[in-house]
């Protein structure tokens, strides 16, 4: 007993440390700080303000996409068709604009396409009882196949000429801060408001905690599911526009890249359990920053792209292992066939 006796201050700090390390969020936060310090010490270019801004800017698109994913994951869903929706709706809008439509109308058609796609996926899940993972996995394939077959032939679609205001979104700055980052911040605030202060947000948490209970208590289950996937598709479209404007083009091959895993990486690393029911925008920001530090550091160290993928995969796997240890599956509410 005697060796366990410690001073009160030590005890409280011990408690704080315990508290940090008991939640996955705390662990990731600690890791992010550690990674930042290590990179800052080892890589001379890392800690410069220019690099840090570039860092946040480079991952803000990932962050925006992760916001959409987070909304769906909190409700115990998943949307792996986000990249397909993003590239196809934006590419189609550009193709239409080049073929004679005014740019505004073309963008409107693009956003309508994204919304219709989201509603269709949501309906498939809500009314068809299809598990979200399969619905969105198959939907990704369908959307991309549809786009490549009927909407556009070329993989690279440049922003139609004569729309400099559009390029300003991705490349301009407000008070020295890139607009991409501003957009990410605004969307974060918006989603935070929705999740914490609207009935829709509360019901999203309720559905994630226990879908059956939410349904029984009278939540408009099906409309909300559809709304969630419409929202995630819309966010994917917004992210696509920002991406296109910052790179002056959109590349349909992104669908075949590991980008969707990066989004999941952000969400899961940030501490939003795949079981749903908990997590907030704060987690997305944390995950985004950590992934940003990781990617930026590896890029500065000139690590091969394929090895970066391996590292990301392993980190994501570790994150999932920790997630499942911290938030074990609830046998009461997890269903048969709930993968």
């Amino acid at each position: 007993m005697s060796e366990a006796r410690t001073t009160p201050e030590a005890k409280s700090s011990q408690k704080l440390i315990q508290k940090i390390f008991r939640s996955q969020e705390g662990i990731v936060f600690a890791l992010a700080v550690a990674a930042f310090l290590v990179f800052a010490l080892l890589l001379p270019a890392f800690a410069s303000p220019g690099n840090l801004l570039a860092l946040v800017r480079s991952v803000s698109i990932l962050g925006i996409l992760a916001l959409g994913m987070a909304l769906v994951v909190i409700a115990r869903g998943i949307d792996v068709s986000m990249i397909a929706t993003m590239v196809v709706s934006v590419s189609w809008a550009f193709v239409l604009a080049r073929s004679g439509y005014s740019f505004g109308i073309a963008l409107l058609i693009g956003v309508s396409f994204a919304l219709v796609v989201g509603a269709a996926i949501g309906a498939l899940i809500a009314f068809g009882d299809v598990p979200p993972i399969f619905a969105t996995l198959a939907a990704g394939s369908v959307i991309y196949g549809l786009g490549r077959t009927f909407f556009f032939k070329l993989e690279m679609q440049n922003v139609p000429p004569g729309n400099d205001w559009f390029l300003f979104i991705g490349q301009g700055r407000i008070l020295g801060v890139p607009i991409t980052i501003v957009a990410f911040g605004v969307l974060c605030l918006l989603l935070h408001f929705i999740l914490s202060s609207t009935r829709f947000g509360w019901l999203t948490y309720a559905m994630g905690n226990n879908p059956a209970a939410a349904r029984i208590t009278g939540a408009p289950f099906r409309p909300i599911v559809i709304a969630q996937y419409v929202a995630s598709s819309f966010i994917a479209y917004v992210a696509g526009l920002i991406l296109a404007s910052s790179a002056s083009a959109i590349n349909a091959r992104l669908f075949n890249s590991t980008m969707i895993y990066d989004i999941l990486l952000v969400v899961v690393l940030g501490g939003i359990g795949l079981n749903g029911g908990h997590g907030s925008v704060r987690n997305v920001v944390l995950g985004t920053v950590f992934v940003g530090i990781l990617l930026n550091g590896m890029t500065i160290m000139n690590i091969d792209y394929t090895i970066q993928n391996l590292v990301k995969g392993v980190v994501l796997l570790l994150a999932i292992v920790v997630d499942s240890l911290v938030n074990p599956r609830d046998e009461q509410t997890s269903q048969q066939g709930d993968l």
Partner: protein
Amino acid sequence: MAISETFVRIRYRWFSDRLVGEILSKSWIDNAIPTIALVATLGVMIAIIPDYLSVGNLTDLSRQVAEFGLIAMALTIVILSGGIDLSVGSMFALCVLAALVSMNVLGLPLLAALTATLATGLLCGLLNGVLVGYLRLRAFITTLVTLVIYRALYDIVFPRLASAIVGSTPDSPTWDFIGYGVVYGVPVSFLIFLAVAIVLHIVLSRLRPGWRLRAVGGARRSAYNAGINVKLTVCLAYVSSGILTAIAAFLFSARLGSTGADTGIGLEISVLTAVVLGGVSLGGGRGSVGNAVIGSILVLILTNSLIRLAMPGSVSQLLLGCVLILAVLFDAKWVKNRAKILSRVYMSPTYLKLPDRSQGAREDYFALNNRLGGVDLIGLGEVEGPEDVILDQNDHLYTGTRLGTIVRFFAPDYKHSEVFARIGGHPLGLAFDQAGDLIACVGGMGVYKVSPEGAVSKVTDETNRSLFSVIDDSRLRLPDDLDIAPDGRIFFSEATIRYEMSEWAVDALEGRGNGRLICYDPRTKTTRTILRGLIFPNGVTICRDGQSLLFAETWACRINRYWFDGPRKGQREIFIDNLPGYPDNINRGSGGTYWIALLGMRTKTFDLAMRKPGFRRRVARRVAADEWLFPNINRGCVVHASASGEILDVLWDETGENHPSITSTCEHKGQLFLGGVSNNRIGRVKLPDGDPRWTTRQDYWGAPQ
């Protein structure tokens, strides 16, 4: 009879919808739809693509089916266990790399290369298995991540060795034989695939590991409670998935001898489509190797045909995605609603017209009295559901109960009882054979024999299966009553082959001849069905000529006589028709008479409903089962009939309080004992004109030795 009613009669006589429900209740219905889809697709492709059935095309297709089908089987195993393995595509690529590096770059012998390939698959599968099985991670996301990791490994290693792989070709005839060899026109790889498929089918459907796997996938917690090592089973499912994928990769490497940067990309989607399309249920526990093979062939035909029709790859992607969505949607809806649909369509009523009671000349025989109103009660509250009662030569009383026992009440006052034998099912009809053994029809089980010491042994529990019956009618579902011919043959009725015992009242709503008369011959130990299509055959009793028997058809309200021996063998005639109620057991009485117990009374409503099958079906579809029509079983009635079928006497329980719903009688020494399948008592009533020395046993088998 109105013309419309004639139409109804003919419609239900010749166009019965009974088969719809019976086909839906079969388990092979899960495979029927993918098979039809496969045949239809094949037909379309043969029609629109010239030379589709050429030898070259088929050989090519079968080689692809071999590789693709193996991976589909791998995924099937994992899905059966209740998980999913998305990493098969990347695992496949890694295994191909392992095979080619061993053969082309390192120049290892074939066996060593095979070992290396299998080991690669095993390690990949083991990682998945440990993560999902032991660490309880979510299968989908975990294998999605391992997909990325394995892919990254492939992308790291492949570019460094690509030129070395292409640069050399291994000098191994066996390797080439596996890749290009043909045995009697069939590619070697396809033969390997067939062998694996057959072995796997046997393991999954006939051996314990397969049963455990299905149990875990079907109901994880129940499997755990049943003592199955769930974690190990799940882990092994992923390991086998890895090994099967490795075999596929080995065949692929031998065939192509090289690999590209895109090997295995998107494979998981097409394999998943194949497996789900084939009918493997994503919820786990439902599916087979056959499903996987059907689905693989279907998907390969689709994709290959699109290539031959010169469609771009995106069309194929679009089509596969659509097919996957449809298949998953169908799977979700099918699993959820199959039982619901089945319960709505299984009950299939038919037209049954009973003769009109008001025109019957024997109405006066059935004038009400209350002679059963004051019967003595035996075992009130102690017995549950004494369907049949019987007494032995020492005057002890035996009856079966719902608890699965045969209870014996001791003479002379029948106040004390003991459990004579435990059988397990509800014993219905009882009869003593010549040796003094008690033979019992047991609901849901069959015919059983109980020795005087109480030892239970099975007599029979199955009969010959009918040739054209959709449902398996070889098992006995509801043996109801029996009697023993003088030569020892046991004749017993099976009330219905379509319902379990608890659902006997639903059979009343159908009104079809679902029952049969069966004979067990102890000399040959065979059981044969002798009459089919009987309307709820119930009581059976052998006539005193020893050549014929009487049996009641409950819902038809009649009693038939059937000759099983003698000059009139095989003939059948109506003994008593147009009874006022539903006859149950028939027993011999003193003076050459018969006692007929009436289970319930006919009502005009129910009689009318029996002529309106459409009405009864609407009832079954729209109203909850506990609100369906039910025969009136609130009155008790026993009919005393002469040897020629004339009604001598009728005993009523007018109030229906003391002894309603009588299902059997037994005359013994001037007293009549009454049983009722839904009662909690046995009745005893003194017969005013009864012979105080007459017993069934002496009457039939003669005086005891």
